[in-house]
Structure formats: C-alpha cells, structure tokens
C-alpha cells in the first residue's frame, strides 16, 4: 500500500509533460452531456479526454483502469467554498478568505481582494476533499458587502498558478443579513451602498486620467476597488451575490437590470418564491439543498424542494455544499435534491456541467467529452448514494492517491496495539 502511495505521489510530482495515457474501460460512463454509455471507455491523454465511447481504440502502453460494474463520471464541481483558504477555522492565522470586514469601521468593499495569493496548495483539506470525488472548486472570499474575487481551481498542483482554471472567475458579494453593517443597518442601506459603489466605478472609468491627476471628486471606494469593478460593470465578470429573502432577491435583480450586470444568486433560500423573475432575468441560483428551517427571518420560506421548484420553473441551478471542511457532502446535497423532487439527471448535472456553465468554463469542464480537461471519477455505484465508494480520482489526467490525513490517522489507529511498537 505504501509503495502504491509513493509511486502515485511520484507521478503527481512529475509535470504535465509526463502525463500518462489512461484508459478507463468496462464501466457505465455518465458523460452528463449525453446519455449514459454502458460498457464505455474513457481515454485520457496529456491531461485531456481524448475519446469517450464504446469503440475507442486504446493505444499500447496505456494504463488501464478496469471499471467493470462501476460508474464513470466527471469530477464533482463545488461552486462556493473557502477551500485552500483555511486550515483550522478557529485559528485565525490560517484564515485567508476575509479582509477584517467584520470589524467596526472595517472596509466592507474589497473588490480588489483576489484570493489567489492566499491559496495553500498543500492544505490538508484538499486531499480530504478530492478523495471524495470533488475535483474542481470555486474558492471564494467571504464577508462584507463585496467580499472580493474568487478563482476556479482544480484540486491538484503545487503552485496556485498550476491549479488555477480562471482568475478571477467571479466577484462575490452579499446583500443578505450578514452584510447589514455595510448598509448602516438597513436593507435599503445595503442596496444604496452597492449602487453608490457601482456609480463611482462608472464615474472613475470615464475620468481615469483626471483621477490620476487628483482632479476628480472623492470616490467612496479605493482606486484598486474601482479598477476591479470594471469587468463586473461590463457584464463580463459575474457578480455572485449571497441573498436569501424573496424581496431581497428582487432588489438584487433590480440592481442587475439597472447596471447590466451578469448575476449569480448564492444561497437563494427563498428563490423558489420568485422563480419567474429569475427565469425572465436568466439568472442562475447556487442552492444549498439541506436548508428547510426558518433559522432567521430572511429564510422563513426555506424548503428542501427549492432546487426542484426552481428547475421546474426553468431557472438554472447549481448545487453547493456551502462547506469548506465538509465540501465532500456535496454528494449528499445532490442526493437529497433527488429525494425532494429533482430528477437524478438534473441533480447530477447541478454538481458537474451546470456549475461549469455558470462559471463560464463549460468549454473545458463539467462533462466527459473529447477535448475537455480529464477530471474523472470512478465510483462503485451511484455517486449520489452514501454507501457508494470512490474507487479512482483523476485530475487533469493524473490519478491522485486516495490518501489524506484522515485516512492516514485511520490506518495508524486501525489496531490499538498494547505493545506499542513505534508507528511510522
């Protein structure tokens, strides 16, 4: 077992030039972009999917993975997490997803804050997550009215630039109750502040040279933030807004119309109540399924049926675990969406191709199609069932060992030996 770990680790350390050819054969292939393929083959070469089908020629020397009786799917795509940006929640020095925005007088607008330099590719949380079949995440900042810029990463690599798919992939913001301080304690204060920030960004763009000469009026946000907001104003960079109450979602949609923004609703606990508005605006929703309690007055309408009702109304949905340490529970979230009315294909799409589409990377991610990045998982059965085991995880064409700190501790304590020989 240790030998297998070491050789797999050696493969990981070898760069893309040494990426192998891998053929996964004999399993039921779920491309997501099309119907399942029984006894299908997925051929992987140089980090990309080379071919998917039933009559795929396998080159000599290819590593073969026998997936007979198993399911072969794209890796799971988690759309909202602080993965890589924290090690232990209560050890403040390990938290790199927030700019002290909860402090009195702290900056509630951090549009220029891009999390890349805070990502730890060696975070112990990454292996824990990827051995559960999650291969790709949007790692995001949190806190304040505008938290900053998120990036999309594959969970493999020793340098953040090697992991990065897109940076920035979105600007994250919040008009939920957790950013009331930005609005001086009132909802219309939050929207007022957001409009003020967007107006300032427009005005700055019209008078950039004058600003540099000090000949413009004062702006309400910093120079860096003004620049960072331009792609959002241009409708190129999505503004992912955490918001839950039905009326607050409608406020966000209003602002989106006024400024021509490309919106994503994050959370959207009461989104089902305004599904028609969301569909007309073509705005997708990132749903955490296991939320059905009126835990605050902004989520009185929480229901497990949110995802299903939104899809029936024609709204695009991605499913998120809403977790960092427990991002692996995205499978359980999707499975519960099925239990509460979402068809299986829709639920699995909501954790693969739908997030890829929402975040603008569907040309390379989210399905098993020739040309896409080889993020592939082999499962012992239905990936949404909790008794299903992960058998193989391949990220960018490299198989990752199914080892994490948690499996190593388990193995160390598999037998409690009273003789207590030194344990490696």
């Amino acid at each position, binding site marked *: 077992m240790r030998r297998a770990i070491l050789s797999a680790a050696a493969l990981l350390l070898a760069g893309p030039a040494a990426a192998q050819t891998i053929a996964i054969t004999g399993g039921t292939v779920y491309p997501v972009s099309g119907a399942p393929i029984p006894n299908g083959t997925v051929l992987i070469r140089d980090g990309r999917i080379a071919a998917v089908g039933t009559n795929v020629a396998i080159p000599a020397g290819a590593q073969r993975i026998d997936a007979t009786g198993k399911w072969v799917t794209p890796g799971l795509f988690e759309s909202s997490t602080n993965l890589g940006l924290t*090690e*232990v*929640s*209560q*050890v403040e020095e390990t938290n790199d997803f927030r700019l002290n925005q909860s402090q009195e007088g702290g900056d509630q607008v951090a549009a220029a804050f891009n999390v890349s330099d805070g990502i730890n590719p060696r975070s112990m*949380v990454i292996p824990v997550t990827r051995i559960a079949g999650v291969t790709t995440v949007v790692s995001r900042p949190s806190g304040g009215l505008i938290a900053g810029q998120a990036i999309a990463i594959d969970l493999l690599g020793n340098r953040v630039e090697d992991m990065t798919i897109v940076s920035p992939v979105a600007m994250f913001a919040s008009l939920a109750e957790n950013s009331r301080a930005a609005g001086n304690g009132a909802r219309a204060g939050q929207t007022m502040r957001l409009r003020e920030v967007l107006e300032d960004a427009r005005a700055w763009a019209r008078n950039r040279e004058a600003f540099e000469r000090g000949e413009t009026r004062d702006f309400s946000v910093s120079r860096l933030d003004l620049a960072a907001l331009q792609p959002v104003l241009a409708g190129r960079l999505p503004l992912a807004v955490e918001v839950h109450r*039905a009326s607050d979602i409608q406020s966000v949609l209003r602002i989106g119309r006024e400024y021509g923004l490309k919106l994503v609703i994050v959370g959207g606990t009461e989104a089902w*109540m305004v599904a028609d508005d969301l569909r007309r605006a073509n705005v997708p929703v990132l749903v955490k399924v*296991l*939320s*059905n*309690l*009126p*835990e*605050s*007055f902004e989520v*009185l*309408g929480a229901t497990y049926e949110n995802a299903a009702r939104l899809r029936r109304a024609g709204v695009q949905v991605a499913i998120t675990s809403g977790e*960092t*340490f*427990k991002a*692996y*529970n995205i499978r*359980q979230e999707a*499975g*519960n969406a*099925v*239990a509460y009315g979402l068809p299986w294909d829709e639920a699995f799409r909501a954790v693969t191709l739908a997030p890829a589409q929402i975040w603008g990377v569907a040309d390379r991610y989210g399905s098993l199609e020739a040309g896409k990045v080889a993020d592939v998982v082999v499962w012992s059965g239905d990936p*949404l*069932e*909790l*008794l*299903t*085991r992960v058998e193989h995880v391949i990220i960018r064409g490299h198989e990752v060992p199914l080892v994490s700190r*948690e*499996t190593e*501790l*388990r193995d160390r*304590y*598999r037998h*409690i030996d009273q003789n207590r020989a030194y344990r490696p």
Partner: protein
Amino acid sequence: MRRAPYALVLAAAAACAQGQARPAATPPPAPARPQAAPQPRAPVPFPSTYRPFPSTATLIRGGTVMTAAGQVIPNGQVLMVDGKIAAVGATVDAPAGVTVVDATGKYVTPGVIDVHSHLGVYPSPGVQAHSDGNEATQPNTAEVWAEHSVWPQDPGFVRALEGGVTTMQILPGSANLFGGRSVVLKNVPARTVQEMKFPGAPYGLKMACGENPKRVYGNRGGPSTRMGEMAWDRQAWIRAAAYRDKWDRWDRDHQGTQPERDLELETMAGVLRGEILVHNHCYRADEMAQMMDMAREFGYRIRSFHHGVEAYKVRDLLARDSIAGSLWADWWGFKMEALDFTRANLALVFEAGARAIVHSDDPTGIQKLNQEAAKAIEAGREAGVAITENDALRWLTANPAWALGIDQWVGTLEAGKNADVVIWSGNPFSVYTRADRVYIDGALMFDRFDPHRRPRTDFEVGLFPAEAGR
C-alpha cells in the same frame, strides 16, 4: 444501580419537612386572618404531563422489519396495541378490526433517537431573544435545567419528526464545565415542555472539557487552561460529595436542622448517587482519559462522551468503561480539537465493543441521522470493519436509548416496548429514502401523504400572506 425517575431525593426532603415536630410551649396563635389554604408540595418538581395521542390497534405488514434487536424480517409484521408493540415477526396474530397498514416495498424500524440536540433552547429562528442554550455566566451552572429553556414551538421539532425522530435529549450547550441538567423529550406537538417530557426518563448532566469553556471564561476569571478546567471540576465534585454526605446523614438520622437545598450541588449529588447520567462533551483522546480518571476519583460513571472526534484512539478505554460514543459521521476542522478526525470513527468505536451512537448537535443533521449513519457505514467498511444494517440501525435506536436510560421502553421493535415506529419509503440508509409515517406510543404523529398529519408549530402559522403562494 437503581435509577430513580427525576429527583426522588426531593420527595424525601419534602416529606421530611412536612413531618417535622412542632416545638413545645409556644403561645397559641393569634386569631387568624383569612388565608388561602397552602398549596400541597409537589413530590416531584416539574413532572411530566405527557399523555400519548389517540391511537388505534394497528398492524403494519408487508415491509422489511428491522428490529434493531438482531432481526431483519423481510415481509414482516408489527402489531401495535394500546401504545405498545404487541408482537413482531414474520406473521403475528392480529385482533379483529385492527387498522392494517400496507408497508410493501418499505422498511419498518424503531423511532430514531438523538442524544444530542439543542432544539428548543437554540431554536429557529436563531435570534438573540431565543438564545437560551448556554447560561454562560459562570463555569459551573449545574443548577440550571435545559427544560426551562425549551420553547416547544421550535419548528425544528416537527422537522425532526419528519426525519423519523421520536425521542431527543435536549442539552445545555458546551460553554460551561457543568452546563446543567438535560431533559429527554418525546417528539410530540405540545404547548408546554412538561407535555413532552418522557415519563420515567432519568435526567442527564451536561459536562464539557476542552477548548470551549476556557475560550469563554479565560478572560473572565477563568478557567483559562485545561488544567484549570480539571481543577475547577474536581473542586466542584468535592463540594458535591460533601453535600451528598450531608443530605445522606439527614435522610438517615433527621438530626439537627434540615440542610438547605442547593440546586447546583443537588444535581451533582444526583450524579454521585447514580441517578443522573453524565453526558460529557469531549473531543481529544487524552482529555477523555482524564475525564475517565476523574470519574473514578469521585465514584461516578460517564454515560457517554459527546462529539469525541478522537474517540477511535481510545476506543478500547470506552469499551472497558462501558462509555458510549455519541459521535458525528464527519464533522471536523473547526477547532484544533476537531482536527484529528476520521470518517471511520463511529465504525471503529463500534468494532471495539463500545456503544456507537450517531448524534446531530444540529437542527438539520437531526433530520437526516439515518444518512449520517450511512456515511459512517461506508467509511467503516472501507476501513475493513464488518458492519451489518442491524448494527448500524442500533447506532440510531438501541444505543441512544441505553445512553439516555430509557432502553427498557424504546430503542428496538420488541413486544412490550413503546410503539415508537417509523415506516420508511425505502432502505433507511439510502439518500433517497424519506420517512413516510412516524408513530409515537402507537399514535400516528406524522404521515407524509396526509395533509392533516403533518404538524406545524405555532411559529409557522400564518407566516406568509395567502397570495405569497407558499
């Protein structure tokens, strides 16, 4: 060890007070002013006023019956009469006129029991006015009783019912070393918490070790270290032992003046007498070993460690001392003491012969404890632990019933026990399965397909105007 329901020591005290002799040679009392007759002293304070809901004799047949007592009966039958399980088997003799429920294709199990919940004391909505779970004003508040904070209109209760939960232990939080008494509740709609109290259930005492108490009190006079926490605990037990000795002497001899009651020491003395069960929040292996030694020092037993993220490291000690492990399937990473997790924790504790329990500590988790168990099964099998579905079902039913001291009444489908029964739409360890029907004491409390059997609490009445289309 005789477990007395609630505090019979208080009944003895009250009786003694009423039996006291009056001193001689006092002048006769002055002519009386009109007075209300004194109210008789209740023998047991805050007694349960629970009554089972109406039920009819019911035969559930055609489903896979999982008794949690070792049997899995495909196409089995469960007969419920007068609130009790009358018979379980492949076929049973049912009286004429019984209500027949067809469970073909479904699974039948005992009701789910959650040993660690803050429903009602940290209810939804989680606003400051409802934040009643931690009396975080001093490190030892053994005197408080969680039931006095329980808001029966917490919508979380009926959500848990929809998840198959029929019994819960509501605990104080873990800010304090001694958080206070817990209470065991039946998951029935109620106006008062007394209407929910499980008759006959012993009280518990919530204790906490590790990071939480020293984080809360470190800057407020302490304790600020783990060693400070242990010293605080041991000093408290010393005082509790003295209090118990004083009352034991009084109960035996009635010499001198009756000691004054002290609610804090009364609860702790109840633990020393074996009447109140200790539920000890503790994460780290080494700290669990310390708590076990402290229990030995003072002669009490720990009924269960809660959370126990590192329980797998000392699972042999848990088994040796008959301490249950009330654990999560996979929570970790939020604190240093929750870092050394493994998803095989529950399974390893089970394999070692200690009672493994899946607990929630969460109003969403409690709704899907069956799914948490499923995750723990898979992780355990991956580690090579042999786990049957009956084994795992016991993590949700029989083992928590034991931990709460109510296993003579609930936790398995066996004749004579309370008819707390769940009919599931499929295998309870499938993510797609939902509870179809939930019976408590034979009464149908939840029916997914009957709009008149889907209770709501008062809080959810009229939340939205009719046109909102809820």
